[in-house]
């Protein structure tokens, strides 16, 4: 039995195995025959609303031929004071794999330590969201056929966005050429950069100006307004750090733009039908990637 809790637990080989498996899953989705039913139950436990991630795991379970059951925050017994450990112990008696989303950091690790079935982390506060990172890496691989040597720009709120920290880790592991671009106040923490530098010695450039001239993949995230004490400051940074059509036109023709969604107004208005915009395709790859994750942790 294996869990998927943190990118930090994975070797490059592990990540490659997930990505290859996702490709197989994507092919199986294109075939017209329905999935072979399996006698497996996937339990989704969402203690924090995240409709998109929840639906995507649910769809992945169904597409695998498993059944899905669900426990969500307000209806659960946590309102009555039951600990997460107890809830997890009980649910692991009902299902073959647990998918957990929780607002507190380390919740998934705790769950994995007490569960008798595999646990998949679907986001633990500001800490980890490993399936998102696998989806991001898969998207880059599908669009560009490689990750190593690609110029990838991470642009936006690098200080608060968990997706960006995790992606930096994944990209470093695969030897991408990384540009970190954010307002000064929202730079990636030194600690995170130091960790990947010590582990993978990647090429990382830090800047506060958007310049896409050498950019193969532009990965944008929103300013995380809810993390600001000063809402005026958040609005100001959001205004200041919007990507313009002129900036995009300076990029190579085959630039791909990704975004973990939801987006606010980081990208030009009416941009969604532009051939560079790949974020809806990226979101759709969430299903085969999560199928691969569920399949692997349950033991193929």
């Amino acid at each position, binding site marked *: 039995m294996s869990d998927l809790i*943190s990118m*930090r637990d994975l070797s490059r080989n592990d990540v490659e195995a997930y990505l290859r498996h996702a490709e197989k899953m994507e092919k199986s989705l294109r075939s017209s025959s329905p999935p072979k039913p399996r006698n497996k139950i996937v339990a989704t436990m969402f203690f924090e609303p995240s409709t998109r991630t929840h639906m995507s795991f649910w769809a992945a379970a169904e597409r695998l031929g498993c059944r899905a059951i669900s426990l969500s925050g307000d209806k659960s017994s946590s309102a009555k004071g039951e*600990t*997460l*450990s107890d809830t997890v112990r009980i649910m692991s008696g009902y299902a073959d794999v647990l998918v957990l989303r*929780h*607002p*507190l*950091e*380390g*919740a998934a*690790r*705790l769950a994995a330590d007490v569960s008798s079935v595999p646990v998949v982390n679907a986001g*633990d*506060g*500001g*800490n*980890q969201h490993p399936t998102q990172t696998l989806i991001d890496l898969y998207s880059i691989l599908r669009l560009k056929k490689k990750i190593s040597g690609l110029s990838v720009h991470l642009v936006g709120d690098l200080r608060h966005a968990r997706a960006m920290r995790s992606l930096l880790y994944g990209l470093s592991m695969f030897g991408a050429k990384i540009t970190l671009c954010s307002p000064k106040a929202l730079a990636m923490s030194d*600690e995170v950069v130091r*960790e990947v530098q*010590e582990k993978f010695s990647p090429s990382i450039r830090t800047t506060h100006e958007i310049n896409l001239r050498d950019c193969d993949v532009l990965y944008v995230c929103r300013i995380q307004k809810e993390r600001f004490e000063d809402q005026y400051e958040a609005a100001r940074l959001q205004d200041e750090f919007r990507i313009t059509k002129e900036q995009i036109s300076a990029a190579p023709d085959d630039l791909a733009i990704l975004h973990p969604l939801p987006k606010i107004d980081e990208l030009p208005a009416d941009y969604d039908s532009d051939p560079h915009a790949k974020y809806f395709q990226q979101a759709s790859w969430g299903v085969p990637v999560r199928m691969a994750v569920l399949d692997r942790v349950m033991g193929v």
Partner: protein
Amino acid sequence: MPLTVQKISNGTVIDHISAGRGFLVMRILGIAESYSDRVALLTNVPSKAMGKKDIIKIEGRLIDKKTADRIALLAPQATINHISNANIVSKKLVEIPSQIDGIFKCPNPKCITNAERVTTNFAVEKNQKLRCHHCERLFAAEELVA
């Protein structure tokens, strides 16, 4: 005139504590107002090897290996001398442990270990920094002891 502290006859002398860290080491030893035996903390004592150092003398108590290892996180050069009948009976260097279980609280307020009763665990990484097993954040040893 030199500042002197009486020799102890039975107990422990922790020497070569990095200057200024003596107060934090006292916390690791759990020595607070209610402690009833004699304890001396000397800080900023001139030292040939270290420039300045702190020393702690505790009467009537021996320091076990686990506590000594925790001291190593704050004062990697410390030596622990056990004293019996006014003689040094053992002299040991502290060793930095690779893991610390169940002693420290995680300073991250959003860590699950602060919401639910669970044994904390920290892995010791480079430069005596500690990473929480649960929330994966990295802390300096001082942050955990404070």
